[in-house]
């Protein structure tokens, strides 16, 4: 038995982000995986000391570019709770719409990277082609492609015109059709099944004990989605979490496909019910936030938690960000032992690691 130690990452072409795993192999089979963080740690939580609570919106958006909208959404919700600001219903709906747009693009991005992790380059390009349409939607409605910067304490900064809504709906039809087509292409492919079915199995029990969140938990049969807590406008939109029970890489990609399609539906329903009115509440008291609170939202990668502590000053006392990947690393460590080296990228990517999120 030959033992090899492979430094997997932080710079590795198959990894979209720099996670560092020390893999101990015995004949191409992983026996132990130890993570090491800190490669892209930027100290964003600590920035709350020098940026005031308005400026922090732009800072938290940069915790994770791919789900910037949802980070800012969560942050604004927390501050609004501390300052007792009532957000107008139209703004609530618009936040949901943009969050779901972000969810679709994040899932498409992931599906592409996932295809690339088992060497299916052409499929990767197909996913990213569809994603480009979502980026266009984001760019035309919010003003930016990725870091959308539409949230503000008390509402949103942009509104949707009737013309934009019509255009958005036609674009969404195209996106939905394309996703459906690629879903059958990918999920029925012999070689894809060969590479993903039964790889990196996580049982429901393990997922719960190790604190898995998001598609990793839902792929293992846990019906756990923070959107069920009906924050923002989710309470008024009929919503049901997507659950698969197999707990392998195949199930996790299936969850993401179905969620992307469910998000398209959610956007349609939200546009349909979009109430008229203001998009930005007048913040009456200029008193900075005071007190402490915890806010949770559902990111494409899973549950995101923010802890706020303010003492009535311009800067928050403490802002803690727990990103979903941080919660999903322990399940990853449980999945890796026993898989072959050739499956390590597939299993690692199946949790959708966002390391710059994790290390903040």
């Amino acid at each position: 038995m030959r033992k090899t130690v492979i430094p997997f990452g932080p710079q590795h072409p198959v990894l979209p982000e720099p996670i560092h795993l020390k893999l101990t192999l015995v004949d191409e089979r992983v026996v132990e995986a130890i993570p090491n963080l800190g490669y892209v740690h930027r100290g964003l939580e600590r920035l709350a000391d020098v940026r005031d609570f308005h400026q922090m919106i732009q800072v938290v958006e940069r915790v994770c570019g791919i789900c910037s909208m949802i980070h800012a959404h969560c942050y604004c919700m927390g501050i609004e709770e501390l300052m007792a600001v009532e957000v107008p219903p139209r703004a609530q709906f618009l936040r949901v719409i943009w969050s779901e747009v972000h969810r679709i693009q994040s899932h498409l991005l992931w599906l592409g990277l996932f295809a690339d992790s088992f060497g299916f380059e052409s499929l990767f390009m197909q996913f990213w082609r569809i994603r480009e349409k979502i980026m266009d939607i984001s760019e035309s409605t919010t003003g930016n492609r990725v870091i959308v910067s539409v949230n503000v304490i008390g509402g949103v900064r942009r509104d949707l015109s009737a013309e934009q809504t019509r255009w958005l709906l036609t674009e969404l039809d195209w996106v939905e059709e394309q996703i459906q087509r690629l879903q059958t292409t990918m999920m029925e492919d012999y070689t894809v099944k060969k590479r993903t079915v039964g790889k990196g199995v996580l049982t429901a029990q393990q997922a719960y004990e190790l604190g898995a969140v998001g598609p990793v938990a839902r792929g293992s049969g846990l019906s756990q989605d923070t959107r069920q807590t009906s924050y923002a406008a989710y309470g008024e939109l009929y919503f049901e979490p997507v659950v698969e029970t197999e707990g392998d890489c195949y199930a996790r990609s299936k969850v993401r496909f179905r969620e992307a399609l469910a998000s398209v539906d959610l956007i349609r329903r939200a546009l349909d019910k979009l109430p008229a009115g203001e998009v930005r509440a007048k913040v009456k008291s200029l008193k900075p936030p005071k007190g402490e609170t915890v806010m949770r939202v559902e990111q494409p990668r899973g549950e995101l938690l923010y802890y706020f502590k303010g003492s009535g000053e311009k800067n928050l006392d403490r802002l803690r960000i727990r990103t979903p990947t941080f919660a999903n690393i322990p399940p990853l460590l449980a999945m890796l032992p026993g898989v072959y080296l050739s499956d390590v990228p597939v299993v690692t990517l199946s949790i959708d690691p966002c390391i710059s999120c994790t290390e903040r």
Partner: protein
Amino acid sequence: MFKMTHNILRNLVVRKSTRRYPFEVREAFDKVRGELVNDIVRCIFCGSCEVRCPSQCIQVDRKAAVWNYDPFACVFCGVCVDICPAKSLSQKTQYLRSVDKRILISMQGELKKKSREKDKEAEKDKPAPVEPEGPAATG
């Protein structure tokens, strides 16, 4: 596999999704937050943009009436545009082109009186602005 074959072969005949970028540029959407410009004639040097900017890329000298801006530190969030009381800041729909040298923009304006009505009157009287754009390249 066969579905993929179909997909791949269709891609051979339909229009390509990529374009030869610097030679062929897509038309921008109307509300895109691109390059930040300051109409220095209207600027009242209040400093709100400096205070609210999350990346601290703007420095305003209220006494000397100088507006300094570092486009490479800017994150193009548009917060300054939103809060500008004189509406002198705006964003183009085109993004900043990539360059190989750092650019620092420094604009010299003229101080105006506090009242905005008087400000407008004064503007009518005034001729052309003093040095509307002066990008000074530094290392």
